[in-house]
Structure formats: C-alpha cells, structure tokens
C-alpha cells in the first residue's frame, strides 16, 4: 500500500504556511 504517494508534499506545505501566517497575524493583532 502506498499511502504517502497520493497527494504529494504540497498539502503539508500549505498547512504549514497557513499555520505560520495565522501565527504572524495573531502576533501582530494582539499584544
């Protein structure tokens, strides 16, 4: 079974980008 072959690495990069972007906006929004 090749679970990892489907989807590729882009999904996790998108998630990471989402995560860091959210942290950055949280950081700049609040004190």
């Amino acid at each position, binding site marked *: 079974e090749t679970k990892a072959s489907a989807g590729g690495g882009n999904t*996790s990069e998108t*998630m*990471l980008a989402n*995560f860091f972007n*959210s*942290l950055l906006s949280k950081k700049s929004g609040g004190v």
Partner: protein
Amino acid sequence: PSSSEMQRLMNEKAHELFQVCDTEKKGFITKRDMQRLQSELPLSPEQLEHVFDSLDVDGNGFLSLEEFTDGFGGFLGLRSTS
C-alpha cells in the same frame, strides 16, 4: 540585507512565534500546546497535528525552538545552516 542578517531576523521572528505557542515558557512545544491554539487559529485539530508532526522532525513529541525555526525558515524559503 546580507544573508546572515536575514537569518538573524528570521530567528528573532521564529522565537516570537515560538513564544506564542509555548505559553508556559517550557522551552519546547507539545501537541497539547498546539491543540490549545486551535481556538485562536483557523486550523482544525487534524491540521494542527499534521503541522506539529511536520515540524517535529526527530519525532520525539517535543518541538524545540530549533525545529520550529527550521520549519519557519522553510516556510519563508530560507534554510538555516545546519
């Protein structure tokens, strides 16, 4: 700016963001810390878990500042010199 300057700025920013996650100032981030962020970030618990696993390259269940900074650098398109 020079690449070492970029590196320094990135490390500073990564440290700030690390502290947002490490609310108890333990010096590392656990999955529990990530789950706590769920209410504040637009990511599902599964996504946060996935993010954690991606960043936790040694898979020990603790995210060190170094691992976090490395992941942040990857996000910015920079690579920390190892």
